[in-house]
């Protein structure tokens, strides 16, 4: 702001005025593209969700009918119940596991970057590749069950992906495998940011290792817990690739998620209107997580500013 102001006061010829506008001209296309992407596209999908579109988009208005049929659809209730169940276990276990890894790595271990590389590599691999590989491992006639059976434990059963009731656990386990390293990285960054003097003081007071973590270190990285939870919840709401690669919503419809529901209704069943309504619900779920989080961030920043 200050610099732009100086540019103007240095001279007020036409050339200077053009120069003052340069940055705005340059950024304008990006602003326009983002605006279209965020507002026009979301508004468009919202409008389609209110229309009578079936196989092709159509703009006959029919109000909230698509939402009514969405919420009375049994498949949708499977989808959002799956999302709730998945989120609960995926988020909490990924966090606990990531925290454990971060604490282990924080113990001044040798070859730290070697260990970190191992736990983080799943993040560089697509969920499609990861899901495909784990789908093979879950296959009872060649994967984990086959291995344990061949050890002599012939009654052992591990066939998650072909079991209606437990197939969601296949997605939860693979999801945790894929993102625990991520929560480890965030927690580790948090642990490293704790003032070493506080830790030393606790140790001089004779606090045990466990107590130091529980009473001194972890409370100071509270905001990190919230950040990790919010990011993982976002991943959970957007779960699509893993569900497609691991179970393809099956067996039957037992592992349908909101995101796969959108895809099915828009492109497989030719019910674009209802698919758009489901997409709006995915957006709403993200908003439920992210709006309070951004308010919390603003509140925290203000409080920090006030306390100096």
């Amino acid at each position, binding site marked *: *702001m*200050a*610099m732009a102001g100086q*540019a103007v006061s240095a001279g007020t010829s036409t050339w200077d005025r053009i120069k003052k506008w*340069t*940055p*705005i001209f*340059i950024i304008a296309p*990006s*602003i326009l*593209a*983002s605006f279209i*992407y*965020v*507002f026009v*596209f979301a508004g*468009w*999908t919202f409008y*389609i969700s209110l229309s009578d579109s079936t196989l092709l*988009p159509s703009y006959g208005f029919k109000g909230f009918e698509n939402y009514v049929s969405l919420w009375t659809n049994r498949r949708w209730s499977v989808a959002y119940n799956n999302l709730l169940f998945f989120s609960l276990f995926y988020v909490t276990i990924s966090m606990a596991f990531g925290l*454990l890894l971060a604490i*282990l*790595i924080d113990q001044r271990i040798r070859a730290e*970057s070697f260990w970190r*590389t*191992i736990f*983080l590599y*799943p*993040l*560089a*691999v*697509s*969920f*499609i*590749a*990861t899901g*495909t*590989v784990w*789908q*093979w*491992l879950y296959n009872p006639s*060649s994967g984990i069950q*086959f*291995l344990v059976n*061949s050890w002599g434990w012939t009654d052992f059963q591990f066939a998650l992906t072909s079991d209606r009731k437990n197939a969601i656990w296949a997605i939860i386990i693979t999801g945790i*495998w894929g993102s625990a390293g991520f929560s480890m*990285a*965030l927690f580790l960054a948090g642990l490293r940011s704790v003032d070493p003097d506080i830790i030393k003081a606790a140790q001089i007071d004779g606090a045990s290792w466990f107590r130091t973590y529980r009473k001194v270190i972890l409370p100071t990285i509270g905001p990190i817990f919230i950040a990790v939870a919010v990011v993982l919840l976002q991943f959970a*709401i*957007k779960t*699509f*690739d893993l569900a*497609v*690669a691991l179970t393809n919503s099956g067996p039957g419809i037992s592992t349908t998620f909101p995101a796969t529901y*959108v895809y099915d209704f*828009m492109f497989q069943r030719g019910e674009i209107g209802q698919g758009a309504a*489901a997409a*709006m619900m995915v*957006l709403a779920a*993200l908003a439920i997580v992210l709006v309070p989080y951004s308010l919390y961030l603003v509140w925290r920043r203000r409080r920090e500013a006030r306390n100096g």
Partner: protein
Amino acid sequence: MADAVYGTAAVEDREAGIASRRRLISRIVIYGLLGLISIVYIVPFLVVFLNSFRTNIEIGANGLISLPQSFRLDAWPQAWSDFCIGGQCNGVARYFWNSVAMVIPATIISTALGAINGYILSKWKFPGSEIVFGCMLLGVFMPGQIALLPWAFTLGQIGLANSVYGLILVHCIQGLSFTTLFFRNYYVSIPDDLLKAARIDGAGFWRIFWKIMIPLSPPIIIVTVIWQFTGIWNEYLFGVVLNSGSNQPITAALVALSMSGTTVRTYDVMSAAVLIGALPPLLVYFFGGKYFVRGLTQGAIK
């Protein structure tokens, strides 16, 4: 006297002994746990790697998770150029090159635009620039599902339906919010005084960008390029919805390949195919690991 001295030394020795034994035990526990968890992390992809060199008959007999007893390289060329996906027997090569043709321009363009946008939003602020930045940030959170129909329609209208160019456009615009965020947050920490001096010497918008900002930017450029490259390469939803058949990227081909309902699964060739698809981002990760993690943590906590 001598006894007493000897006595305290013994007590100290014993205490030191207990302490060092305790330390040893805790070290064993730490490395033991890390080792066990590492096995869970390494095995899935190690198995795939080994299976790409085993014969399919041996995999069928001994299972996916077992030590190799045969060795052959045939699966790799088969996966690359002969394997049948969706009725076409040309391997994954075509899809791999589609992904390459998509990821390189999309990464370069979105990173370049992000650098310029970040530069403007941090150093050439204008009335309303904070609001503009806030709106662009919203793009980071948009779920792909919301944009599917509008993209399909728009690409159809401008003649880019079912083409790699269409996907390049989609990924450029979708990535814009991320790259702008990365660069803007990085440039905010560059002191304005540095630019003021250059201004007094008569440097303009582009000269400051090229002579001052870009030389300071290598770390954030690497972070952004890695982030965009891995993200675009691994993306599936847009690839499968907006493109079809031989125009799809590698992720879509991998799904088609593992869903194809042949009676006998050719695990050897499929393993090679999955690795071919996973290799480019993995290489980027192994060579730029530090920057990859930095992007991850910055992308998460805004």
